């Protein structure tokens, strides 16, 4: 899932300066799962904003709406019914949701309530960790299901580096990704696979060079 966390309240209040009616738009997708922007968080955010603004002598009216997802046009369309008299949308989705709302409502000022952090997983309730670097060309088959691109601090494809000490990374207190890869390959009897040298990765498939697209002609409805 995409993991996000709330921006500081002051920053959100700052972006809502001069607005008197705000639609606080939640998302029922990833950010609801990581407890950052679902229906409950929308309620907490809206209540906190209303109280803070009332205390400042600038009362704020909020409309609360949580879409199934903010990254699909059919759900984003639903928001149109709620925009009567609204000055601004505060999106509690990831960066994708914020942009999608801005694209679909060109006359509306849209601001983010969250900082989008990474593609990750729930380690335990209340703890999320990055697992995928979205590099565009998965290497997990070569590394035993442990991603060196994002879990190695240096994204080494032929690790480990000299900073791997007692199984720990020298950059962060995390486990060394290459130690994890080695241990897993060993336990699965596939150590010989690590002898193969990974060639230079094609980073043109990664994040530089503008937005990437996935096109599936077989599932397109129009055109």
């Amino acid at each position, binding site marked *: 899932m995409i993991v996000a966390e709330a921006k500081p309240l002051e920053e959100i209040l700052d972006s809502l300066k001069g607005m008197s009616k705000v639609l606080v738009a939640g998302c029922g997708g990833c950010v609801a799962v990581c407890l950052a922007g679902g229906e409950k968080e929308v309620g*907490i955010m809206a*209540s906190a904003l*209303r*109280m*803070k603004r009332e205390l400042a002598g600038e009362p704020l009216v909020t409309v609360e709406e949580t879409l199934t997802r903010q990254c699909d046009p059919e759900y984003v369309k639903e928001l149109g019914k709620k925009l009567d008299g609204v000055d601004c949308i505060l999106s509690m989705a990831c960066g994708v949701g914020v942009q999608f709302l801005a694209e679909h409502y060109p006359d509306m000022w849209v601001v983010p309530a969250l900082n989008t952090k990474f593609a990750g997983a729930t380690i335990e309730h209340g703890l999320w960790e990055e697992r995928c670097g979205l590099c565009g060309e998965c290497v997990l088959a070569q590394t035993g299901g442990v991603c060196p691109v994002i879990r190695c601090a240096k994204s080494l494809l032929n690790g480990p580096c000299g900073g791997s000490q007692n199984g720990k990374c020298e950059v962060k207190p995390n486990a060394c990704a290459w130690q994890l890869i080695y241990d897993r390959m060993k336990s699965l009897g596939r150590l010989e696979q690590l002898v193969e040298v990974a060639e230079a990765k094609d980073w043109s498939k990664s994040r530089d060079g503008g937005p990437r697209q996935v096109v599936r002609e077989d599932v397109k409805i129009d055109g």
Partner: protein
Amino acid sequence: MDFNPKIVAFCCYYCAYSAADLAGSLRLQYPPTVRMIEQPCSGKVDIRLLLEAFEDGADGVYVAGCLEGDCHFLKGNIRAKKRVNAAKKILDKIGIGGERLEMFNLSGSMGPRFAEIATEMTNRILELGPSPLRQARQAEGENREEEASK
């Protein structure tokens, strides 16, 4: 100005709510400032509920759950405590003040302690005065009256 605090108490059915019953049976006196809301467990309380109590005009709010280790649902009271602490931080940021919110632990047999908590919280709120939100609303109302009389 006479200040009659409005205090909302979210009380767990298995402890504080029974303790309140017991306090009543024992004819114990406690301030009439406390409005009790029965909860199936203190763990039912979430941050939104706590904030909205303040927004709806409470001067103080407390959550009363079972003694730690004695939760009927094992960890509900521990979770409630964490949420209360998180809500305190939000209240501090908003300007209402986290000290207006508290978590208490007691058992169903602690009727006298229930009365004591109600008194303790009432005294705390009396000392702090009306919620800033109530004060802002009152000032706003007075301004409007003044403008209307002009």
